[in-house]
């Protein structure tokens, strides 16, 4: 039960990892969730970027 006024990271800190954890198992160290999130990011990036090229192309010729 966290003491009020002190964030959880201090009152109830993350459990220490067992000393024999080594490099961890496949299941423990995969980052699939993060990979999905960054792909969503990349998709947003690609869309926004090319939409802007499209907007630019509608202007007067400039050189």
């Amino acid at each position, binding site marked *: 039960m966290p003491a009020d006024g002190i964030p959880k990271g201090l009152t109830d800190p993350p459990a220490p*990892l067992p000393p024999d*954890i080594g*490099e*961890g198992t496949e299941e423990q*160290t*995969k*980052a*699939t969730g*993060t*990979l999905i999130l*960054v792909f969503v990011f*990349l998709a947003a*990036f*690609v869309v926004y*970027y090319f939409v802007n*090229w499209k907007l*630019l*192309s509608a*202007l*007067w*010729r*400039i*050189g």
Partner: protein
Amino acid sequence: MHTGLESPKGIWWKPAHKAEKLWVIIAFVWCMVLFAMMPLWHVRGAQNPSGIRAKVDPEAFLARTQEFIRTYQVGTDGGLPVVAPPPGSHVYMMAMQFSWTPVLRLQAGAEYTLHLSALDVNHGFSLFPMNINFQIVPGYDYGLTVTPTEAGEFKVICNEFCGIGHHLMLGKIEVVDGPVTQGGGS
């Protein structure tokens, strides 16, 4: 396994995590796309901020613009001279605290070299509603080749802070279909 607050134990130069390696490669490829688009657009695209650039003394630019106005003035609008230069010509617009001079009357589909400079401080050329924007620096002539695509009335906003009258600055560029009438008349 350690956190960012702890010193890594032993050798930390280790092979990357599988997903991490995948992402770094993909991100790098995307970065190369980002780079390649720019030279590509110079070759295949129609909007580039290249221009013919030169240093110019503000006094000289003022004189050149005044001569340009004398040669091609066709009237006045909003207290400013309106000029109608022939297609293909060098066209001048000067920015100063707090106006854009002169008003330009251009022909749709025709190419012009639009020389932009400032007589005093930095200004920002922002063509409304096209949203075409350039930095105007005193002492520098930005000669952009422009081809208006269609007729209309366009305003020139100043979008670089230039002093207390910054928000009063508004210029105009008219684009008409067909040849512009030049010289004389009002």
